[in-house]
């Protein structure tokens, strides 16, 4: 099996879908000659030309609207917003237009549009280039929300997104772009709404979102040595959410920890917990816990950034605390 980076996996997915269907086009900032801010569109401009890989001006709201207009008239656009922090610059088109036009029109339209954007801390880019705003778009009915956890997942989920006839918001993690992964050759299509049990275990269910899956796996390597066997679930998609896989796992382990890099308040972890509590209440040994980003703007200094974000270490310690509490109880 070959190893490629997460960025390469993304450009491969776009390349394959563009080759397969000439209706697929892409709009975004620096996706042309530069090959994407993080290398996600490397080589595609040379291959497909400027009308399919279209460098846009810094006009987020209008180029998302532009993509919507293209989607309504027979194309399958991919549109890129460089940082999820800039989603709000395009807020009207995302929240009021893309998400709603099908419903508002009584089902007359379809919007086969994939919006790719990036999330994540770890590079000291402070409060306007580090946020993980996936909860924001998950709140608005009409969008699908996808959170790949590694290169293979990114490729398989992105190809599914591009073929979907609904607007999909696809969150790439900045710390993953250069990470290599064994990505199988050939077609990969990962369906939405099917969480992935990446490691089976009996002690605690850990639901990870995006990068927190690999953080949980790293924490697990340490925990295993101490005899703690966690089950790790990669949520994959927030909308639609695979409640069943989480519920079944919690029924088995009796404990649930949710790890998400979004801010804690009104976040996806809260949503998962509230959503499944009615199904698992009597199976729980202890309250549902979560590790999210603290409710402060993202700070610049690495010391401060590390303080507020979920980390492998925090997962490790929280699992241990949950297990001790369990032992005492």
């Amino acid at each position, binding site marked *: 099996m070959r190893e490629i980076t997460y960025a390469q996996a993304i450009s491969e997915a776009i390349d394959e879908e563009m080759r397969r269907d000439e209706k697929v*086009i892409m709009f975004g900032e620096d996706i042309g000659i530069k090959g994407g801010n993080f290398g996600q569109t490397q080589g595609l401009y040379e291959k497909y030309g400027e*009308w*399919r890989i279209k460098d*846009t*001006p810094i*006009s987020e*709201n*209008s*180029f*998302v*609207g*532009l*993509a*919507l*207009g*293209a*989607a*309504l*008239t*027979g*194309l399958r*656009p991919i549109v890129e917003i460089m940082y999820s922090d800039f989603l709000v610059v395009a807020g*009207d*088109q995302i929240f*009021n*237009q893309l998400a709603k*036009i*099908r*419903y*508002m*029109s*009584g*089902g*007359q*339209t*379809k*919007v086969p549009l994939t919006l790719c954007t990036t999330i994540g801390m770890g590079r000291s880019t402070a409060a306007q280039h580090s946020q993980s705003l996936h909860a924001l778009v998950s709140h608005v*009915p*009409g969008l*699908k929300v996808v959170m790949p956890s590694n290169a293979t997942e990114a490729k398989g989920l992105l190809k599914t997104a591009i073929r*979907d*006839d*609904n607007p999909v918001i696809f969150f790439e993690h900045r710390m993953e772009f250069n990470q290599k992964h064994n990505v199988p050759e050939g077609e990969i299509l990962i369906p939405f*709404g099917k969480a992935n049990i990446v490691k089976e275990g009996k002690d605690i269910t850990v639901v990870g979102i995006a990068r927190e899956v690999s953080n949980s796996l790293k924490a697990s390597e340490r925990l295993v040595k101490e005899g703690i066997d966690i089950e790790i679930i990669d949520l994959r998609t927030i*909308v*639609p959410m695979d409640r069943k896989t989480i519920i079944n796992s919690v029924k088995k382990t009796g404990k649930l920890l949710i790890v998400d890099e979004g801010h804690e308040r009104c976040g996806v972890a809260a949503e998962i917990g509230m959503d499944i509590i009615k199904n698992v209440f009597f199976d729980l040994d202890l309250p549902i816990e979560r590790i999210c980003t603290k409710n402060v703007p993202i700070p610049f200094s690495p010391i401060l950034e590390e303080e507020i974000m979920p980390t492998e270490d925090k997962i490790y310690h929280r699992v241990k605390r949950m297990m001790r509490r369990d032992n005492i109880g």
Partner: protein
Amino acid sequence: MLKILRDSDFLAKLFKDMLKIRLFENKVVELYSNGIMPGLAHLYIGEEAVAVGVCNALSEQDYVTSTHRGHGHVIARGADLNKMMAEILGRRTGYCKGKGGSMHIIDMTKGLLGANGIVAAGIPIATGAGYSAKYRKTKQVSVVFFGDAASNHGNFHESINMAAAWKLPVIYVCENNLYGISVDIRKVTNTENIADRACAYNIPGQIVDGNDVVAVFEIAQKAVERARQGLGPTLIECKTYRWKGHHLADPGTIYRAEKERKEWIQKCPIKNFKERMIKNNTFSEKEIIIFENEIKELIDNATEFALNSSYPEKSEAYEDIYFSAKEEEVYL
């Protein structure tokens, strides 16, 4: 004499289209006043020549995006009045099955990509339709209607900039009716004409009397021709006036002088067109009465159709969110 002034069928169509809008809107006022219509509507009365002049310069395959004040554009595009009226009254037989209402009428079969509740939001969407037409090499053009107030929104600048840079087949039609709700455009804008801004994008900017349907048609036709030839976008500013308030519940009197309103009403696009046609012997008064009766009947039928239509089932609130109906259960 202009060529179109010799085409009496076409002139009759322009007249009937404008009258359809006027009488439809009058009926909306009546239904609202009688408490039959839920929500609100933003009336197009006084601006009919703009939508009718522009839409009659288009082919069936072209695209249009509209505004919150959208009834006129929708009717001028040839929409089904029954489905429009039913939508406005929240019935399941409406264009959007009662989910959109007055501000969100869409007819994909007529390239009508939507009226829109957000000011200026249709501008980039129409620009994208233009991009799509250019990419697919279909020779379709895309028209976006927007008000004077929308020209101060970032979407105006962002979208025209892209269309100009990429020579997209898009016609930007500004309906300058002088007021954004209550705010006089002259108090918040330093250019006398919105069309003057075209020079910033190196595209043609045209000003036209928005009460003269023939003049609007002529200028729109040139812009359409230019767009189809691949020469890029045009900005057209139609000087017009909304006779009524911002919406049905706004009398529109406190922020405008009655004298100003009356002066504009004197320039009524329908009355003036009618008088001109009679003077030119294009139609007799008798023929005009026949046209009027024909339109009245259409409006009455639409109203009857809407009032006899049922409301949606409650379960329909949970439909049409995502493309595949089967999936919807998963997402709720």
